[in-house]
């Protein structure tokens, strides 16, 4: 039995369309995973890192040179860095900067219980 060529072609077309639709349907169910933005990219906010570094420097000054206003500034820097931190950032870094700045304040008052004299 000879099947008409035209019918065959149309069948192919149907299969082809079906395949295309099927791939389209399959594509709809495809799950592409979310790729979080690379740290350090253009949209990345540098504030928490800078504040963290500044906090460390102020804590060192507060501890070494017994400057009370440096220790207080370190506490502020830790707060600001915490407020602007990304959730992907590890909390150890945040905790260590808080601990360092609070220890700077405590140590400077233990060594010299007099009230703070402003730097100006």
């Amino acid at each position, binding site marked *: 039995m000879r099947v008409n060529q035209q019918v065959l072609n149309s069948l192919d077309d149907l299969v082809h369309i079906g395949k295309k639709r099927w791939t389209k349907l399959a594509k709809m169910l495809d799950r592409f995973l979310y790729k979080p*933005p690379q740290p350090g990219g253009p949209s990345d906010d540098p504030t928490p890192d800078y504040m963290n570094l500044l906090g460390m420097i102020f804590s060192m000054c507060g501890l070494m040179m017994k400057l009370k206003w440096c220790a207080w500034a370190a506490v502020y820097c830790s707060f600001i860095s915490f*407020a602007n*931190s990304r959730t992907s950032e590890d909390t150890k870094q945040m905790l260590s900067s808080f601990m360092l700045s609070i220890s700077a304040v405590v140590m400077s008052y233990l060594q010299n219980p007099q009230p703070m004299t402003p730097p100006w």
Partner: protein
Amino acid sequence: ITVVKSGNPHDADIEDNDFAEFEDFEDGVEVLEDEDRAEFPDDVEVQQQKEGGAEGEDDEETTIENEDDDDEFEHFTDEDEFIGFDKGQSPSSGKSKDKLPNLKMTEVPGHLRTNWDSFYMEILMLAGLAVYFLNFIHGKNKNHKLAQAWLQSNRDLLESNFHIVGDDGSTKEAQAGTLMKESENVYALWCSGRSALEGMLVELRLLKRQDLISTMTNMFKPASDQILVTIDLDKNVMDKFVFAIAMKRSCAKLHKEMIDLSQFTEKKNLDKYSDMPSSYQLLSEVGEASNALLDKKVCQVLTKFEGQVEFMHFSDQFCGAKSQDESQATKMPEVKPVMIFCFNVPGKGKSKPTDMEQMKPLLQLVFYCLEKVSRLQLGKEARNKSEKNRKKAEEQFLKAAHSQLQEAAQLRREEKRRNEKERIMNEEDPDKTRKWEERESRREMKRKQPKMKMMKI
């Protein structure tokens, strides 16, 4: 008043007790008032003289006693021994009143122990921290409310377009409805499972309301919350063109920073698009694509939401922004077709959840443009033009990379020659060094010779 001391007239037998001398003192002291003195002026004087004399005798006695002492210290008052020493002047009376140093008593505070109100700086610092913390809580909640309001108002539109809405990719099974918190002011929503694209990332870049300093800077320099929609298209869905329409204030920055925009597009004016607002600027590579995309509907939306659509950037050669360091990359950057939309939330920083709900038409604009781009087919001519642009860009890149590779090779060659020279210098055998010098001089000569071209006639 002259005090006259009278002795013990009756030579009474004085008991030998400690207070003997005071007893005389209490009985015999008579205080002669001035009037009495007038009655017995002579006697008193006589008596005084006697006393004076008596005293004098006493003095003499005492002086007699002193005389023995003075001999012992005679050499201290010898004028020959000490220059400028005046015997007559007694040492004690030598200093006049005005030479005495005036001693200034320094003010010593009443008591050294401090009380609470001298710690005013510390109280100020603690108050500042408390205010910062309260603002942090308030700002964090406000941002959370805004993000949730946007999600609630657009959820049904997203779910009708995507199979997966709000998937953070952390679990094997696809999640739904998770608004990822990148930081206290950046939220992200990932949707996938739709034809023609791999995924769509919606980033809610809100203001840093949780940071007191940013809140204060926003008061002086108002800014608005932004919603950035990035669609990663499938390969071969989008034809080859780069297109961007942006507010004039951000167009220059985009044109300079984005690699694909700076390489492929030019600024075009918008006069021929009649109902396009004048605050926008077009960056286009293929005119045909721009005409197709900026149809009547898109122009109406841009006019109605003027200022809220910051920019729309469609590109098949997207490879991000230019990197900060100047070094030329040696490898061709990886390009991918993307569509990026950036919207501003109305309210200039004082947005409320209701403002978020008014952003729904803009999300519909995103899906409308997605359909248009995926159906757009460039004509033959336009396609040839874009193919040519891409080839030219590739050649430029290879040329730049080649020159960099050449420089690196040059540096390596010089390094090698320097090492060889050092090795020869340390060489003890004179023959080898002479041979090496001859070879070097021959090479120098050959390099210096003018390059002559042989002409075949």
